[in-house]
């Protein structure tokens, strides 16, 4: 196979590989794979832990201030 033929073949292969890419762009990409394998629940668990931790902290400060208010004459 000569050089020109190789070049044409490579270009054709590259052109072919770009087809799936073009097909994908007809519908918006969403994180469907993440939902399919269930890993999104890990993210939800992490976010909920942080949220609950922060709110528990605010609650603790709330109680501390209540105690201070009671101590004041």
């Amino acid at each position: 196979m000569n050089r020109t033929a190789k070049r044409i073949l490579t270009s054709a292969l590259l052109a072919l590989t770009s087809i799936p890419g073009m097909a994908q762009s007809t519908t918006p990409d969403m994180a469907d794979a993440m939902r399919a394998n269930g890993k999104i629940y890990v993210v939800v668990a992490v976010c909920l832990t942080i949220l609950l931790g922060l709110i528990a902290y605010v609650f603790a400060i709330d109680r501390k201030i209540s105690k201070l208010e009671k101590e004041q004459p």
Partner: protein
Amino acid sequence: MFNASLYPNFAALNILYHNVRKIWWKILSLLLLVYTVTGGLLMDVPRLFILNESIRNLYFHVCMWFAMMILFGISIFHSIRYLLSNNLRFDINARQYAAVGSVLGLLGYITGAIWANYTWKTDQSQSLASILKEPKLIGAAIALLIYGAYFVLRGSFTDIDKKARVSAVYNIFAFAMLFPSIWIIPRLVGSLHPGAPGSDSGNPALNFKDIDSRLRIVFYPAVIGWTLLGVWITTLKIRLQLLKDKSLIHE
């Protein structure tokens, strides 16, 4: 209504009942935020180009600005009450609501910058220069800086009554400046942010035709949840300040 005091054997229940009556809105805030994170990440959203999954930022980024506007609104309300009554308690309220509102505004600004980095810069190949010229960003920065000046102004007085009076008047100006800088000017001149002319959405997040119902069932509870959390933190700051300033306020 259930009256626990009729049942003397349930003293513990009585205490619980009275506590719940006082803190029900804090529990509501917690429940709404748990729903926001869970529903916000898991429930169905419209499939859109450029935005993709990042549309879920509506429940977080947009809510920061909504909560900020509400807290600034409460702040100006207390400033006006101070000017009408000269009661320093209202001055403390106004200051703390403005402080927590500014924090939420700053969070809204940072989250907006992160969002814009992916939806404006990467996906629409906007240059950094065109994003830095973005009127919504400049307007929001001006609005936050005006509120920053409110705290500088407060810090520069030694006379407590003068501080309260001048900063209450300034607070009214600061609130009034929010409208042209954040809401009006970015919509008159072009902007990549939703709501600008050419972006085919008149009033983002509020327009019923514009925002999908799948988004609204999470978005509205999210706004209430984040706002209540902001109010909760503010009440803590107010109570601390009242403990500190007990000698100043005669009640």
